Every structure is written in structure tokens, then in C-alpha cells.
């Protein structure tokens, strides 16, 4: 069976000359949840933007067998949902309901169907009560949940979440972990939150200087790269 995501030799350089990706190979199979680990600036977010066709580098990226190119962008963006690190940038419509319905409308659903999808997605993330509110009236954690609902409403085959636990309090993080575990889609989580990665991911890939240097279990990579937060001893 073909993998959901297949990336070969992906390279990308920003306009200022920064080499962000330097030959990334990656594969995601159906039902998998993979954590992308690595230091800030190691290329994780740049990699995620390539999956959705928002950036285009050298190498090949295939989503559900479709090469990511201008011809397939509409279909690719229906198959892969990207939740950005900063939810503020993802919420731009006047009300929460309109924002969550934005994706389904763009993918050709009728307004009635889009509203139904939006309501179901908001219910899934526990934000239905905020449907009529303006996004800028929500707390940071609520914005994050609405941003996730906006992606779930499109019913993508793959979810990519960039720093999903940022701004969430511990109960919010637990609820998100439960929600993600219950979703049938394959998922990629970009995170520095190791307990969250352990709770949700079956596999991890470690980025360094624009390449994936190692793949394995979250536990293995956390040990090898000392990627857990350990409080310094008081001197």
C-alpha cells in the first residue's frame, strides 16, 4: 500500500540564503502519528509547509500518491490539514462559525453543508458555544481549539499540527491528546512537548540542520538527544 506521505531528497533555501532543508526523506503510513522533534530553526516547520504546497523546494513530495505541484494543489490541500503554530494567523473570518466553515466552503460544499461540518467540528473540540463569537474575543487556548476545528471541518486524510500544545493549559493539553488519539487520521505533530509526544505519537523523527538525522520511538530519541526538560539542580 502506498504511503500517505512520501518525501524524497527535499531541499529548500530561503531568499536570504538560509538553507532550511538539506535533503529530507520521510514517509508516513496510514494510521501513524509521528512527532517531529528538533531544535528551533532545524527545519521542522519549513518541512510542514512543503507538505501543503505553501513552499516549494527541490526534491519530491507526494501526498496520498499525488505529487505536490500547482496542478494538484486543491486536491492536496483537501487531503492534508495544517494547523499553524500561531492560531491568531489562522483565524481571520468575522465569526468562529464562518472561520471553521471557510475550508469546507472553499472545497466546494454548499453553505448548508459547510455549516453542518463546522458545527460538528466545533462540537468535537468543545467550542460550539463560541460559534457566534468573534475570534479576537477568544482566549489563546480557545483560539487553538477553533483553529483545529477549522482543519477538522475539511475532513482531511492527514493532520499536521505545529506546536499544538502552545498556549494550552494542562487540562487543555490532556483534552487535545484525547481528541487527537480518537481521530482516525494519520498525524504529524511538531512539538517540543515530550510528555505530549509520548502520549500521542507512535514514532518520532529528529531534525538537525535541515535533515532528519534519526527516526525511532519518542522514548529512544528523547534519550539519545537528551530532549526532555530536566530542572537544573540549585547551586
Amino acid at each position, binding site marked *: 500500500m502506498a504511503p500517505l506521505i512520501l518525501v524524497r531528497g527535499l531541499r529548500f533555501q530561503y531568499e536570504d540564503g538560509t538553507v532550511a532543508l538539506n535533503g529530507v526523506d520521510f514517509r508516513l503510513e496510514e494510521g501513524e502519528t509521528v512527532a517531529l522533534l528538533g531544535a528551533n530553526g532545524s527545519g521542522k516547520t519549513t518541512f510542514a509547509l512543503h507538505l501543503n504546497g505553501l513552499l516549494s523546494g527541490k526534491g519530491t513530495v507526494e501526498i496520498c500518491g499525488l505529487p505536490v505541484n500547482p496542478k494538484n494543489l486543491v486536491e492536496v*490541500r483537501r487531503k492534508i490539514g495544517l494547523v499553524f503554530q500561531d492560531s491568531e*494567523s489562522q483565524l481571520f473570518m468575522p465569526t468562529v462559525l464562518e472561520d471553521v466553515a471557510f475550508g469546507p466552503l472553499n472545497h466546494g460544499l454548499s453553505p448548508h453543508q459547510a455549516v453542518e461540518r463546522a458545527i460538528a467540528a466545533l462540537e468535537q473540540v468543545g467550542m460550539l458555544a463560541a460559534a457566534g463569537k468573534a475570534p479576537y474575543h477568544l482566549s489563546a487556548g480557545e483560539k487553538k481549539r477553533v483553529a483545529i476545528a477549522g482543519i477538522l471541518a475539511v475532513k482531511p486524510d492527514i493532520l499536521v499540527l505545529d506546536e499544538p500544545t502552545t498556549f494550552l493549559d494542562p487540562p487543555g493539553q490532556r483534552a487535545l491528546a484525547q481528541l487527537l488519539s480518537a481521530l482516525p487520521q494519520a498525524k504529524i505533530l511538531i512539538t517540543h512537548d515530550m510528555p505530549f509526544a509520548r502520549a500521542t505519537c507512535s514514532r518520532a523523527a529528529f531534525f538537525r540542520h535541515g535533515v532528519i538525522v534519526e527516526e525511532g520511538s519518542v522514548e529512544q530519541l528523547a534519550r539519545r538527544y537528551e530532549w526532555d526538560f530536566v530542572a537544573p539542580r540549585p547551586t
Partner: protein
Amino acid sequence: MHHVTLDQWSRGASALHRRDPRVKIASVLVFLVVLATAHRELAWLGAALFAVLCVAAWLARLPLAGALARAGVVLPFTAVFAVASWLEGDPARGATLVMKSYLSALAVLLLVSTTPLPLLLRGFEMTGAPRFLLMVAQFLYRYLFVISEEAQHMRKAALARGATMGGLAGNRARFRAAAGALAVLFARSYARAGEIHRAMLARGFPGYFRPLTELHFHRGDVMFLVLGVFTPVALRLLIERVA
């Protein structure tokens, strides 16, 4: 921010809010033409049209004082021309200019305050307005929120570090700091706007906004159209004939 208030007002549930945007646009256009082309008995006509707009604001359950004050946003611009006319010895022309511009602004404000922007632009689109122009208007409107949010974040950050916001004009150093902050605000807003555009593309944005509500004509819309077109024309004819 004006646009936040207007956005909240536009989401009301009055009979005026429920009308199809196309009939509201047509009514406002007729109103503007009637007002702009009037040359006789302008004081009476102005008073009558002002009364019509006040009744409309009341029917739309808008705060009248707030609406009247916001329509005054055009006055500083027209006041310049009014003063010039007065200096040239034609004060009546200046007064007419102020009156016409204020009533026009109030009429447009009522249209914007009773129609959510996506629907308003959809209405314009369906009446043949260029799509590109409407897109620019829609983006401009959306990014106003972005700029206002960025400005609020910067203001909080400055206050947290001991800045004071008063007396900028009276202090050269503060004025310079404010000018610098404005440049940073622009740069941050530009970056944020880029992120938003990226998020829109990621969710399949095809280059134009699809409205969540379809437009349909109802009997009430036809009645409103007749009333909206008939009232200003009838008032003008009546006042000019009586005079």
C-alpha cells in the same frame, strides 16, 4: 476602532439587517443621486432626508448618537473645502458641501452597519461591480483587524516597560519614538498579513470569498426597494414643487 463597532452593528437582527444587500445598495445609490443632484431648497431637503436616515437607524436598532457621530468622520475633509468656499465669498456653497457629504456618509454608514461585509460585497458583486476591486476592499477590511491587534500588542508591550502614552505631540523624543513604533507596526502587520494569507491558502482559498449565506429576494425586499427608491425621489419632488 470604528470598523470593529460597525462589524458588530452589522450583525444585528432587525428587519433592515435582514433585507437583501442588493436592494439596500440600490436604495443608497438612489439616495446619493437624489442628494448630489439637488440644487433647490437644500435646507428643507436636507432636513427631510436626515429624518429619513434617522428613522432607518432607529428601525435598524442602531445607537443613533453613535451613528451620527461616526458619520461625522468625513467632516474634517469637507470642512477644508467649505472654508475655502467661504473665503471665496460663497458660504452657502460651503454649507451645502458639508450637508451633502455628511448625509452621504450617514447613508453609507447605515448600509455598512446593517449588512455584514461579506454579504455587502457579494451584493456588489452580483450587481456587476469589478471582482478585483471587491477583493481589495475585503482584504483591506480584514487586515484592519490585523493592524489594530498588532497595535494593541505593541501598546501593551510598551506600557509593560514603563512607557506612557500621553502628550506625544508635546515631546519631540516621544514623537520620534511613536514614529519608530509606527514603522515597526507596519512591518509586523505586513508579516502577520503574510501569515494569514498563507493560512488561507492552506485551507483551499481559491482567490475569492465564498459567502456562508446565499442571497435570495423575498417579498419584503421588493417592498423595501420600492420604498427606498420612492422616498428620497418623492421627498425631493414634493419639496421642490411646494417651494
